[in-house]
């Protein structure tokens, strides 16, 4: 059987989901944002909730997420996505509401918003892209930057005495009673991406159960900011990011039910 015989519409096993628009993504080649957008879109398609989902986009590279997913969107001021999502969810409790935030947005300027949204137990989904750097503005140090990691504002590497220690947010908010599901995933391989997709789906399902906030952290790469090729950035992430940000579920209140 030759290749042209296989390429028939009835043999398609994987194609781009219609939730994603046809716009070309502005992200750099190999950026994890594109993969995570796709996973969110696939979850929305599989659950059949295109009409019932509201996204809140952050400030950062992913501010343009509203150009790529064909759903209802809001765009929040820097770091304030959980506050906006709180309002959307309280006004329309039947809708699925999620925020999509980077580490510069969520772990820095938006720390107060995320912690209080978790503490109040808002029934929203938070997707947190952690690549340890401010990607959009030119690769400056973020709160999540690893010790010794070189960025444009820490050219000799992050020094704990001068810059403090990396902020590991997920275990912090796991202590709060308002959170229902906290997990950390990545999308650098097909296996990891499939697990991340399952976690995103679970988070969306939990958000309709009224048991609290679901938080999906995706350890990601910023190959342009890290000054590496996309594949080298994935290797660097496995070697350096994973020891500080290990993958896996951190909290799941329904695990034993």
């Amino acid at each position, binding site marked *: *059987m030759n*290749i042209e015989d*296989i*390429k*028939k519409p009835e*043999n*398609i*096993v*994987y*194609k*781009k*989901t219609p939730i*994603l628009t046809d716009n*070309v*993504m502005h*992200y*750099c*080649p*190999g*950026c*994890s*944002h*594109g*993969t995570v957008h*796709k996973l969110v879109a696939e979850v929305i398609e599989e659950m059949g909730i295109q009409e019932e989902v509201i996204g809140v986009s952050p400030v950062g590279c992913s501010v343009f997420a509203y150009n790529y997913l064909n759903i209802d969107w809001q765009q929040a001021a820097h770091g304030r996505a959980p506050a906006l999502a709180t309002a959307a969810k309280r006004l329309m409790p039947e809708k699925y509401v999620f925020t999509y935030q980077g580490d510069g947005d969520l772990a820095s300027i938006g720390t107060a918003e995320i912690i209080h949204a978790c503490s109040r137990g808002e029934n929203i989904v938070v997707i947190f892209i952690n690549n340890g750097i401010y990607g959009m503005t030119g690769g400056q140090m973020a709160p999540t930057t690893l010790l010794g990691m070189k960025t444009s504002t820490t050219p000799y590497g992050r020094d704990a005495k001068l810059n403090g220690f990396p902020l590991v947010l997920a275990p912090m908010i796991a202590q709060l009673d308002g959170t229902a599901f906290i997990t950390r995933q990545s*999308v*650098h*391989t*097909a296996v990891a*991406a*499939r697990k991340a997709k399952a976690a995103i789906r679970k988070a969306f399902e939990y958000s309709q159960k009224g048991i609290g906030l679901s938080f999906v952290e995706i350890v990601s790469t910023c190959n342009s900011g890290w000054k590496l*090729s*996309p*594949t080298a950035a*994935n290797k660097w992430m496995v070697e350096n990011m994973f020891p500080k940000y290990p993958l896996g579920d951190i909290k799941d209140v329904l695990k034993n039910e």
Partner: protein
Amino acid sequence: MAFKGAIEVDTQKCKGCSVCVENCPTKSIQLSKLVNSKGYHYAEMVGDACIGCSNCAIVCPDSVITVYRVKI
């Protein structure tokens, strides 16, 4: 049971990041020597070892890969 697969790449949207190349278990993808209109070496299928596992498509950040699969 065995599977045989094929992929189709939207060459104009591919940015040549080669994440798919790293994730292919049968080494059936490589970056083309040619470039698209933006100057990226786009991904293309090589040989006939593809099994249609969709690994390349699920890790593709720009969702440019369509996967076909048949049982043989």
